[in-house]
């Protein structure tokens, strides 16, 4: 298999999700449906619960209440690695790669493996080829042998995305893909997201860069005080009075 190929499925439904840290209700009875094949964006003011929502959905934090359904399967209580294996990949707000591994090794971590395959060589020809395909697609295949800590931040960002894709997700959740990245690279990342989406992958993107959100996404969900207050096409959301109030306090 190469670094393309279409993907089907990728529906994510969240119902009544709540998570409190002490007295602070970071996510408060949030219900959102992400339809397959869309590029969804989550926006909202700082502290509106976007990242906590993200972490609850991916299993990194256990929610107090609520259900998360991934392609019809309840994953509310599943561990993060199980959720990942069921087809939900994610990036981190502050880009995370394995610093002391080479770029190629970073990619090989994401190789799907059955119990019988665990003793197979990590760098078998098939995995190497697939990894090179993804590295080529994001444009860092020449860095294969570099240690991840020695490549630039932008390159690490691309590596993180390639690594997520290596694990064959149907849904890709990106936490601030444009954070700390120069305009040329933002353009490259958004072009990639569009391509990958055209192959059937669902995207859920948390982002502060409004230009990017408006140009990239099909569907925007606006968070405020831990729950979605509005959703719809980018143009609709932009003029929604509730959104203006949440953002500008008018």
């Amino acid at each position, binding site marked *: 298999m190469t670094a393309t190929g279409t993907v089907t499925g990728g529906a994510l439904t969240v119902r009544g999700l709540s998570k409190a840290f002490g007295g602070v209700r970071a996510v408060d009875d949030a219900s959102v449906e992400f339809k397959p094949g869309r590029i969804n964006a989550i926006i909202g003011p700082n502290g509106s619960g976007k990242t906590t929502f993200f972490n609850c959905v991916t299993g990194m934090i256990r929610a107090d209440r609520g259900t998360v359904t991934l392609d019809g399967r309840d994953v509310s209580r599943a561990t993060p690695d199980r959720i990942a294996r069921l087809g939900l990949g994610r990036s981190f707000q502050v880009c995370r790669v394995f610093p002391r591994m080479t770029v190629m090794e970073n990619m090989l971590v994401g190789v799907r493996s059955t119990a019988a395959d665990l003793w197979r060589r990590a760098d078998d020809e098939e995995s190497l080829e697939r990894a090179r395909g993804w590295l080529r697609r994001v444009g860092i295949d020449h860095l294969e042998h570099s240690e991840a800590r020695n490549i630039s931040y932008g390159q690490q960002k691309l590596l993180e995305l390639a690594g997520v894709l290596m694990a064959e997700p149907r849904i890709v959740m990106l936490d601030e893909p444009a954070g700390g990245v120069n305009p*040329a690279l933002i353009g490259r990342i958004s072009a990639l997201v569009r391509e990958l989406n055209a192959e059937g992958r669902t995207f859920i993107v948390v982002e502060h860069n409004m230009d990017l959100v408006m140009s990239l996404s099909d569907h925007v969900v606006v968070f405020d005080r831990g729950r979605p207050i509005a959703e719809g096409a980018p143009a609709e959301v932009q003029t929604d009075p509730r959104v203006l109030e949440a953002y500008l306090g008018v």
Partner: protein
Amino acid sequence: MRNASETTRAAAPAAERTAGNRAARPPLLRDPRRLVGVGLLVALAVVVLVFPMTTSVGYLLSTGVVILNYALMATGWNFMGGFTGYISLGHAAYFGLGAYAVAILIDRTGMSPFLALALAPLVVVVIAIPVGVAALRVRGASFVIVTIAFVLILLLVAQSWASLTGGSTGLMVPRAFQGLMRTEHHQVFYYIYVAALVLALLVWWRIDRSRFGMGLKAVREDEDKARALGVPTFRAKLIAFAWSAFFTGLAGALYALWFGDLDPVFQFSILMGAYMVLMALLGGVRELFGPLLGAIVVGLAIEFFKAEFGDTQFHLVATGLLLALVVLFMPEGVIPAVKGLFARFGPQASSIREVSAQQLLDGTQDAPDDDAPVAPGGVGRVR
């Protein structure tokens, strides 16, 4: 649409790159680095195998056995510490359990010492798994403390449960080989230890290059990130922990049969656990032969200081100093430090892609090579 052009662009260089790392590997004789590696390995094997034949001095032979015992323990420790980065200071627990398991199995059931030797490490694994299930829920300093607590618990049990363990007076272990002279006894165990060590190294090597091992190393680097990529981290850590306990327990079982007398204070000592950590760190925890090299250096040092200064605490001071020196000057261990030294003379790697002007004009090359507003590592930094 875009995809079509994307795939054709990607297809062209694919063929030449398929060769990749492995297929393009030059033959052994023309690859100086591999040649040095293989040469060192053969030399090490010869020295290790020939050593017992060159002497009949009991003390030297027993020192050889002691060092191999350290090497087996440290290599066993490195299944956990090296792959996952979980530092256990309490691995003496499995060493002690292996030793007591052999002694009690022979003593209580009357089974053959060889059967007991085969069963003891499995007994250790059975005990280690529930301990691992509990201990591996915490990371960092908490994990270290849990492992230490377990040794101390076992020490108390071994001292108090006199009807089973012989209590503080210890336990005599029946001899496995009847009628051997002292030097022959040392020689036989020397070679048994070598075989066990080779087995441990083989398993470590196999894991190191496997998918399972890649998952473990990802845990060492960033556990949450590994989980987010689908690595079943808990299960992986538990399996590594079980292998680690197995080989450390095997060392304990062999030790019991060799030494013949168990004292709980020695079997379940924090110091023994600390030695394993020191040896592995000294040699290099990411290296197959790191713990072995560390065991040779530290083991010889301990024996030297004991011989030179008698039964004082001086060897503790000396090993403490050694640890400080390693941490200060070779934080990665001796093997990576030496390798790094050699790498300076080798060809340099660069993260800058070279392209011709034509390629740029053709647009076959559109990677943003220099795109870093924040570049922690620095663009194009040469390693």
